[in-house]
């Protein structure tokens, strides 16, 4: 199977989400990121590699250090997807709402007719 590299995969893993949280406000080098985790530095490197391949992290060389910088723009793919589905359901509920109103006003009319008999 082809290995997917997209934002959905990037945030599928809790460690990767935590890395994103860490670098959200300030760029950090690999060591500072690795310190936060119990897993090996290699494992953290792999997560960072995946995040860069998914476009959520950019690595910038500063002197001898390499810093990870967060790029949140890609995450809009996720919120867009969710938003689309939410809108779909919202519209269904709108239709349900007008249907229920219609059914009830019909019901009331019928009741009135029955009462008049």
């Amino acid at each position: 199977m082809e290995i997917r590299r997209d934002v959905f995969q990037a945030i599928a893993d809790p460690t990767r989400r935590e890395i994103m949280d860490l670098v959200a406000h300030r760029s950090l080098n690999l060591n500072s990121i690795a310190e936060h985790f119990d897993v090996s530095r290699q494992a953290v490197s792999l997560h960072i590699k995946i995040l860069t391949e998914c476009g959520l992290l950019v690595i910038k060389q500063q002197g001898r250090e390499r810093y990870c910088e967060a790029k949140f723009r890609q995450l809009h793919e996720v919120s867009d997807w969710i938003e689309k589905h939410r809108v779909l359901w919202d519209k269904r509920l709108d239709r349900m709402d007008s249907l229920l109103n219609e059914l009830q006003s019909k019901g009331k009319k019928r009741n009135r007719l029955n009462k008049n008999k």
Partner: protein
Amino acid sequence: MEKQITVTRVFNAPVELVWKTWTDPELVKRWWGPDMFTCPTAKIDFRVGGKSIVSMKGPEAFDGGKEHFSIWSYREIIPLKKIEFIQNLADAEGNKMNPVALGMPPDFPEDVRTLVTFKEIEKGKTEMTVTEFADMGQMAKFAQMGLDQSIAKMDAIFVS
């Protein structure tokens, strides 16, 4: 953590009537299809283990007016309280289809667990909540992210 999409609405209608919009095929047809779509088919087999077939049909100009079928396989029904079912894309006979074969993106989840709950908040007022979960595929993975908090948080960061 796998919660994915939740919508809640309060209807000015008694819970019995709101419930019926899911169980009466003629009523299902009135709300299931997206805008500009109709729902020509609603074969409702409303019982645990039962399988309903619903469809959406787009305008001629959209895709030749093709009818797209889904099935709802009921897992749990608690009258006037809860309906739980699995949504799958299907053919006209209600046989489950692979979403990719139907032209959906590979992210499209094959099984979408759907939970509908009903609560009478006062007489003639019903709160209904629909939650969709994706149990398979890429979507399931991303759904684990604790969506509401993370997205809000990350969006806030992005905007600032």
